[in-house]
C-alpha cells in the first residue's frame, strides 16, 4: 500500500481527534485527503511533530491527540518517544508510516530496514506499540484510536509519492490559529 492510501484510511477513521501531521509528504497527504481546522500541518521543523503533540496532549488531557509521523521524523527525535511515555499521556496516539525512506526528498533510504520503531517505542515506555500489516490497517484503526496512550501503530508502506498531492494552502499562522481555535471550541 502506498503511503497516501494509508493516510486516506487514517483520515477516514479520525473523528474528533486533534491531528498533528509531520512535515513533508505526510502533511500534504493529510491536507489533500481531509483538510480540517483540527489538523496541524507542521511544514518545517522536521522531527518535532511528536513534541508538538505532547504539548497539546499535556495541556488538554480532555482531548485526544493523534500524531501522524514518518520513519525519518521519528528517527530524528527518538528521545522524544521517552518524553511521551514519561509524561504518561493516555490521550496521545502516534501512527508511524514507515517507508524506510526520506520520501519527500527523493526516497533516500533511512535505517528502519533494520530498526523496528515500535520496539523502540515499547522500550521507551509506550503503553502500547504494534506493527500492523497494511491489509489490516483499516480494521485496526478504530480500535487503535481508543487504545490507552501513549500508543503507537506502525505500518510499513511502499516508497513513492502519488500525483495530485497539493501543498498546504493555508499560511502557517492561519494553520496555528484555526488549530488553536478548534482546541478551545
Amino acid at each position, binding site marked *: 500500500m502506498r503511503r497516501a492510501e494509508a493516510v486516506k484510511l487514517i483520515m477516514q477513521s479520525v473523528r474528533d481527534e486533534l491531528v498533528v501531521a509531520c512535515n513533508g509528504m505526510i502533511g500534504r497527504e493529510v491536507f489533500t485527503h481531509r483538510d480540517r481546522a483540527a489538523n496541524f500541518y507542521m511544514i518545517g521543523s522536521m522531527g518535532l511533530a511528536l*513534541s508538538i503533540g505532547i504539548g497539546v496532549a499535556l495541556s488538554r488531557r480532555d482531548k485526544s491527540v493523534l500524531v501522524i509521523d514518518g520513519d525519518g521524523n521519528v528517527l530524528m527525535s527518538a528521545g522524544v518517544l521517552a518524553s511521551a511515555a514519561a509524561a504518561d499521556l493516555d490521550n496521545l496516539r502516534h501512527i508511524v508510516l514507515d517507508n524506510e525512506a526520506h520520501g519527500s526528498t527523493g526516497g533516500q533510504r533511512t535505517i528502519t530496514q533494520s530498526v523496528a520503531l515500535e520496539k523502540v517505542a515499547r522500550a521507551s515506555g509506550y503503553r502500547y506499540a504494534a506493527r500492523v500489516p497494511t491489509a489490516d490497517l483499516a480494521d485496526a484503526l478504530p480500535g487503535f484510536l481508543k487504545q490507552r496512550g501513549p500508543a503507537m501503530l506502525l505500518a510499513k508502506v511502499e516508497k513513492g509519492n502519488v500525483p495530485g498531492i497539493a501543498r498546504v494552502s493555508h499560511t502557517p499562522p492561519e494553520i496555528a490559529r484555526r488549530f488553536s481555535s478548534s482546541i478551545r471550541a
Partner: protein
Amino acid sequence: MPQSARFLSALEHEGYDFFTGVPCSLLKGVIRRFDDEPRWGYLSAVREDSALGIAAGAYMAGKKPAVFLQNSGLGVCLNALISLNVLYEIPLLLVTSWRGKDGKDAPEHILMGEIMTGYFDQIKLPWRVLSAHSIEKDVAALSETIASWRVPGALIVPKGILDASG
C-alpha cells in the same frame, strides 16, 4: 525572598503557566524549585528543540509557556525557532543562561557566549538581559514585546542571579 522564587513569582504574575526545558547550572535555583514543587508542572525535555515543540503545542492549546535552557542549546534550537515558532507566530518566553559571558568560562561556552546576542539579532528575535535589580520589570517588558510581535523572545540570565540554590 530568594531570587529564584522572586523570578517564578514574576513569571506567574505575567500569566506563564507551562514550563519545560533543559537545565543549566546558572538556572539551577529555579529548576530546583520546579523539581521540588510539582505544582509548576515542569516537564523535563530531552532536548532544547523538543522543548520548543512541546511549548508550541501547549501555546496552541491555550497555555502561556516559558522554556528554560542553557545557551549552548540555542545551537540545536535554530531550526525549531525559525521554521516553527517564528513561522507560525508562536510567542514563547525563552529563559536562557549566558554561559561564556565576557569570555570567561569553560572553552565550550566561549564562542556561543560571545555571539549569542548577535544570534538573536540575526533571526530578528527580541532579547533582554535579566538584572537582579529589575526582575519583575524585565519579565514584564519582554513579555509585552513577544506578545505584540508574536515571536519568541529571550530573557538572558547571567551568572549570579538564578543559580543560587536558595
